[in-house]
């Protein structure tokens, strides 16, 4: 069985729509009615939706203005810069717009296995004395060092070892020259300029050419734009190569659609009816030949299963190829650096330095600096191999929960759990000490100095006390209402669980009736007992509602002077802070019979 590590996930309150309203009411002093309401709600960590709201503490941010946890769902991402993950060059957003979101240098991935491709000469390297000074020459091929694929397999060789993107854009698989849509446009324009009769351009376009999807689209687009420009002179000004939604011609056409009347002049309307359709490959017309599918079948016969692409390989390509021989090297997708804003108040929560290779942050408001961390460990030292630790059904087992306070104020923590964990197998849970105070986190530097330098952090001290406690663990007994252990900015409490019996299947159905009465409120009927144990259903997860209250030092806040002056009447509220959220503690796997 896989090793089990106890875990704590935090639920971002943004997923709980009822929470925000309650919280707003709660700001003016929580009434007892609301308290009970909150107590009644139990968070089910196994509910399908829970998946999307639970995060490790490290994945969460914290908004200092809203005084609330923020998760990826309640922050807004803003792109700071684009860069290639392979060559690490920044790509300006203007070229992202024009060239697309791929690296246009020489960064390519293997179409078979996604490993990076490297370029090498096909010529055998020079040998003998002074060989290292001989300049190597082409042709060059792209090689995959992982699966040993080579661009030779698709018949592509390159002349230069650099600017591979530009070179590849001009070569078809097999080595024939490829005319890119851009190039096509250039030729088209040239022709228009020279007049129809002139054939002066170095490349001529074949009217019966088989086009790839991209070129076909480009040709069709150009053709229809031309038609539209001809049909309505008013729009000729607007159509400068873009879709032209903003052009007066397009606008009048759209208005015409809605009003049913001719918004534009009648002349243009009568002309637009004369628009013709594409007639050749130059205009984007592709006649599907009946032999095409026969061809594919013949190819399939010849190349066999190995010659066809996997779905993943196919999806990575823009042109949807069927055969391995049609695959192209994949230019690396660009990556972004992003800053994050609070969706509610729009304040920035995280902002990285804009330089690609700089890993520092200008702003970084992360939840671990504001929200107490919760660590779990079994109270009993347990068997030698902790990975073999399984919870025995019906045997009371105790765990130590350690809350460490990152704030520079003392906090009061209240924790609550349902008596029985939700789900098909309810385990009984008791927190021996549901309310306690945790000391403030003193300055790291003070502590480091006290520890005698050498960068001894907070952990050193913590470790020491813990080991001391462990030594006396034999005698110490967990008592209800009492804190188990206490340190400078941390407190441990004991939680006792009685793991459920994992009974499933036919047997269960027989004594369903007896069970039902007992389990009704949690399970809501015996039918849910049916079926085998689901994935990870044997993990004992405890939902815990945590409420942290503290008196924040108003003077520490930015702009606090103003705020204090404005809020003299309700100064008390300003100083009181509260944070409440659900957590899930994964404590262990329950043994099956």
């Amino acid at each position, binding site marked *: 069985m896989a090793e089990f590590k106890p875990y704590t996930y935090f639920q971002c309150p943004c997923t709980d729509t009822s929470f925000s309203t309650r919280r707003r009411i709660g700001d003016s002093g929580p009434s007892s009615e609301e308290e009970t309401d909150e107590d009644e709600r139990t968070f089910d960590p196994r509910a399908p939706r829970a998946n999307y709201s639970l995060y490790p503490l490290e994945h*969460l941010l914290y908004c200092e203005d809203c005084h609330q946890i923020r998760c990826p769902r309640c922050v807004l991402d803003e792109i700071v810069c684009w860069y290639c*993950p392979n060559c690490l060059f920044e790509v300006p957003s203007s070229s992202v717009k024009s060239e697309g979101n791929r690296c246009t240098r020489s960064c390519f991935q293997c179409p078979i296995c996604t490993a990076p491709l490297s370029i090498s000469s096909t010529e055998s390297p020079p*040998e003998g004395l002074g060989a290292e000074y001989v300049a190597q020459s082409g042709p060059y091929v792209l090689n995959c060092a992982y699966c040993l694929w080579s661009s030779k397999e698709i018949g592509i060789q390159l002349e230069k070892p650099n600017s591979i993107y530009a070179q590849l854009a001009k070569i078809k698989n097999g080595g024939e020259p490829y005319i890119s849509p851009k190039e096509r446009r250039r030729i088209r324009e040239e022709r228009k300029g020279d007049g129809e009769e002139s054939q002066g351009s170095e490349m001529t376009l074949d009217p019966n050419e088989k086009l790839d999807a991209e070129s076909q689209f480009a040709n069709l687009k150009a053709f229809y734009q031309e038609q539209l420009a001809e049909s309505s002179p008013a729009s000729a000004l607007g159509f400068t190569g873009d879709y032209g939604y903003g052009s007066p011609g397009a606008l009048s056409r759209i208005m015409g659609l809605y009003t049913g009347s001719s918004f534009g002049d009648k002349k243009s309307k009568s002309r637009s009816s004369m628009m013709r359709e594409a007639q050749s490959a130059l205009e984007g017309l592709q006649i599907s030949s009946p032999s095409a599918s026969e061809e594919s079948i013949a190819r399939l016969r010849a190349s066999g299963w190995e010659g066809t692409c996997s779905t993943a390989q196919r999806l990575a390509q823009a042109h949807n190829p069927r055969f391995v021989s049609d695959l192209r090297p994949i230019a690396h997708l660009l990556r972004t650096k992003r800053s994050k804003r609070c969706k509610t108040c729009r304040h920035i929560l995280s902002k990285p330095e804009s330089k690609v290779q700089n*890993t520092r942050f200008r702003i970084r408001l992360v939840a671990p600096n504001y929200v107490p961390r919760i660590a779990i460990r079994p109270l009993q030292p347990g068997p030698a191999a902790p990975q073999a630790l399984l919870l025995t059904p019906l045997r009371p087992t105790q765990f130590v929960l350690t809350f460490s306070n990152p704030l520079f104020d003392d906090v009061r923590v209240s924790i609550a759990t349902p008596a029985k964990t939700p789900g098909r197998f309810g385990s009984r849970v008791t927190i021996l000490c549901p309310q306690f105070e945790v000391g403030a986190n003193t300055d790291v530097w003070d502590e480091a100095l006290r520890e005698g330098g050498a960068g001894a952090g907070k952990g050193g001290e913590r470790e020491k006390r813990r080991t001391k406690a462990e030594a006396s663990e034999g005698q110490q007994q967990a008592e209800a209402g009492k804190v188990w252990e206490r340190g400078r900015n941390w407190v441990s409490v004991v939680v006792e669980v009685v793991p459920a019996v994992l009974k499933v299947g036919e047997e269960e159905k027989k004594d369903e009736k007896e069970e039902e009465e007992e389990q009704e409120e949690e399970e809501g009927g015996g039918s849910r007992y049916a079926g085998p144990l689901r994935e990870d259903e044997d993990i004992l997860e405890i939902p815990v509602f945590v409420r942290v209250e503290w008196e924040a030092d108003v003077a520490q806040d930015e702009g606090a002077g103003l705020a204090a002056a404005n809020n003299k009447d309700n100064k008390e509220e300003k100083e009181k802070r509260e944070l409440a959220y659900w957590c899930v503690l994964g404590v262990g796997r329950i043994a099956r019979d």
Partner: protein
Amino acid sequence: MSKKPVKGEYIETDTGNKVSRRSQIIGTTNIILGGKTVIQAEVIIRGDLLRTYPPSNPSEKQGNPVAVAIGRYCFFSRGCELRPPGKLYRGTFSHYPLKIADHVFVGPGSIVEAALIGSHVHIGSNAVVGKFVIIKDFVRILDGAVVPPNMVIPSFSIVAGRPARVVGEIAEGEIEGFDLREVYRSVGNA
């Protein structure tokens, strides 16, 4: 653990490195350890795989040649192996130095042949980091990943699979978790 530990498991150097007596460090004169680095039992470091190809500008050659350079607070778990990468270049085979910055964790059984590993990098267990791989700062390589040769892994990446790909991003709050000072301190010498 050994049955009768007469001496401690680790040899401690002046700069605070803890090197297991049961590790295999070959070519020690070509290895630089920055200090406070832990090398566990059965770790292999191939300092003998030196660069033989002449450097591009001969003036840079001075002092001891370096095959493996390791920064501070690194942790090499049991049975992992560090090998300088080698390749055939213009008809000559040569190794090239393996450089590792600070706070780099390498899990048990992993093989590393990278060219460069930045700071705050966590490599899981039984992973393979291929030849001439460049790993930037704050990267996590998950257990069993096979990082293909020549791959460049940008900062804040989570990498997994065979061949390895970037499967996720390191969250802002995970940055502190890469610090290995506590891990270093927790290594006793029994």
